[in-house]
């Protein structure tokens, strides 16, 4: 038997009581509870908590370099550690934009300085220089510096020819293109879902077809080029239906959505609540139901937070003036667990949606609870509710509709490579 230096006794994995054995930073075995023998090992009592693979978030905004008052890499990673995320893919819309190796390297350095044992930043390079949509960013240089994907997230690429060439060029480095699907004209100036409520509130709307139009474009390109494309933060039924049909035909398309699109609809805008202003906007109840089904059935492959921290004063403005985004890393697992409690998902879905499938899509390491996997895991207490107060949130961004509300389930400890990176 392999060397064991850490033994976590008495944890629950998918309704089974286990002992988790770790050696040299890797999973050695998940043994039946009480059966493990490891006289040399440090023993930790898991107290019956749920063990989950450390989560991967394929879509976060860490704001550094350039907007450290909203978040910096250290504060973002501490929210990741406490939220159960071992790897976070940081979008390129920093200032300067992550379109050169020097910015990528800076991000990686800052991350290792703050958290030498992880969580790990996996930078996403810009698709076009400065996200301007005019010329291709140097995908090869970005790849060599450590970028794991490319995206113009935040700024839709208007030029379809350029988008096609980006997909082709990136493919040579095995880099996936993540597209922020938004027709640059249909949604221009819109601040919430176009419909009954935008009409009543007198706010400019973004129609669902603005997203679905680009989803259709990307699927057609992926099919024509036989190259993969990953669709970011899908929010509506039309997109889900297009993706489902494309997958049936074998088009190499993958997609993500966020907990907020699974939980809340446009009625949350209520009386101009800027904490729910996101892009794409919260849609209707029908869209929420379509997304839940898509997540259960795998039509939507993965969950991401689209963690978008903002300073408090930036959201304390009129709805039209407020920036888009919800700070998500601290609360993502609790919000997903709400769907487990209501019977929509189970813990196996959480492992799939927040880790395994994400690792497949972006070729990242993951703990599948098999011998030899990295010992990246979370001890989660499903019975512990907590209040998402400003003090409790580790991100600098307190901009969440959960602020000061009770949410279920809490990360009690987080291990990466067998090292404890967080505990409460």
């Amino acid at each position: 038997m392999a060397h064991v230096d850490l033994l976590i006794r008495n944890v629950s994995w998918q309704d089974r009581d286990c002992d988790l054995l770790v050696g040299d930073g890797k999973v050695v075995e998940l043994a039946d509870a009480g059966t493990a023998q490891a006289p040399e090992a440090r023993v930790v009592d898991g107290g019956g908590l749920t063990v989950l693979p450390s989560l991967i978030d394929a879509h976060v905004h860490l704001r550094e370099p350039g907007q450290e008052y909203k978040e910096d890499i250290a504060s973002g990673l501490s929210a990741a550690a406490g939220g159960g995320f071992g790897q976070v893919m940081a979008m390129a819309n920093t200032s300067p934009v992550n379109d050169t190796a020097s910015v990528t390297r800076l991000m990686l350095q800052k991350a290792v300085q703050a958290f030498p044992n992880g969580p790990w930043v996996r930078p996403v390079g810009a698709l076009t220089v400065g996200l301007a949509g005019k010329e291709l960013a140097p995908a090869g240089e970005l790849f060599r510096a450590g970028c794991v994907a490319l995206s113009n997230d935040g700024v839709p690429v208007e030029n379809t020819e350029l988008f096609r060439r980006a997909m082709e060029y990136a493919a040579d480095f095995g880099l996936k293109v993540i597209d922020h699907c938004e027709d640059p004209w249909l949604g221009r100036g819109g601040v919430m879902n176009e419909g009954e409520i935008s009409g009543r509130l007198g706010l400019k709307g973004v129609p669902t077809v603005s997203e679905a139009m680009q989803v259709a474009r990307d699927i057609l390109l992926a099919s024509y080029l036989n190259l993969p494309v990953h669709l970011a933060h899908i929010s509506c039924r039309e997109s889900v239906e297009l993706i489902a049909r494309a997958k049936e035909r074998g088009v190499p398309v993958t997609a993500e959505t966020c907990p907020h699109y699974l939980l809340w609809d446009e009625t949350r805008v209520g009386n101009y609540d800027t904490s729910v202003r996101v892009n794409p906007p919260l849609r209707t109840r029908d869209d929420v139901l379509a997304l839940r089904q898509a997540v259960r059935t795998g039509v939507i492959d993965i969950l991401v937070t689209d963690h978008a921290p903002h300073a408090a004063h930036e959201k304390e403005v009129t709805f039209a003036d407020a920036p888009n985004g919800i700070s998500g890393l601290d609360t993502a697992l609790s919000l997903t667990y709400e769907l487990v409690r209501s019977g929509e998902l189970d813990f196996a879905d959480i492992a799939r949606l927040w880790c395994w499938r994400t690792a497949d899509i972006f070729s990242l390491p993951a703990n599948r609870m098999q011998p030899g996997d990295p010992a990246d895991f979370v001890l989660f207490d499903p019975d512990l509710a907590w209040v998402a107060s400003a003090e409790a949130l580790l991100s600098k961004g307190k901009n969440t509709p959960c602020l000061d509300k009770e949410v279920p389930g809490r990360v009690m400890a987080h291990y990466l490579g067998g090292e404890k990176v967080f505990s409460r």
Partner: protein
Amino acid sequence: MNWRHKDLLEISQLSPAEIGHVFETAARFAEVNQRPIKKVPILKGKSVVLFFAEASTRTKTSFDMAGKRLSADTFSLAKSGSSLQKGESLKDTALTLQAMNPDAIVIRHWDSGAARFLAERLECSVINAGDGWHAHPTQALLDGFTLSRVWDSFEGKTVCILGDVAHSRVARSDVELLTMLGARVRVCAPRTLLPAAITTWPVEVFSDVGRACAGVDAVICLRLQLERQQAGLLPDLREYAGIYGLAPRHLEKANPGVKIMHPGPMNRGLEIASELADCGASLILDQVAAGVAVRMTLLHLYLTRSRVSA
């Protein structure tokens, strides 16, 4: 009637009984406005800030006059030419206003929800004088009051709102008020100037002006913002005037005694034929007079409200 509302943000906050009370009180103030000396002392010592972030001579003057006739002190705070330059957040503006400790703030702002934003942060009354595309409750009340002077009841009456409903706070507030009082409401505009979910509104939708005006008792023309053409919502203004501008021929099948209204300022010859604006059926100048009486009423009600509850 004990007035218990702190703020006036949109018509849906009011009940039909409260709207009736506004009309009755406004009728008394309208009478005051006919006297040789139009000033009464009921708001002496009260201060009202007129905060017009978006220009509007007409509404601002109307509120200013209303306040002065009730002996309140009115202070104007324009967005430009004051310390409240562009760049200062609305929150800081609110705190600045609060520090001046006024009794009421009348706000006009280009953002929907701006009046509510202030109301949530200020202890004084906030009266919405138009926020973005959202609401213009005092205009709706003066429109309703104007019609109440010529109609015994709103029941059985049909009103057509003609023009750019999508971007009109007047239309939103008028629809709420008129339907609440029992009138049937129609809207008529090219599809590009109707909001996305117009089918969920309590209105009948028309695209043909003549048909929309058949059997109506009043037509409310909306002002067309000329930049809608540049925004790609209209082909050209000449075509708009020819097809959607209210002309005498459109009123041939209207009910006898049909009234014509416009919140102003008008683009004569564009959304309304000039002769209709000036004809005997026009209530456009009555609306202006009603505006002062209704705003006197509102200042009176909100500044002397009972503070027992919100």
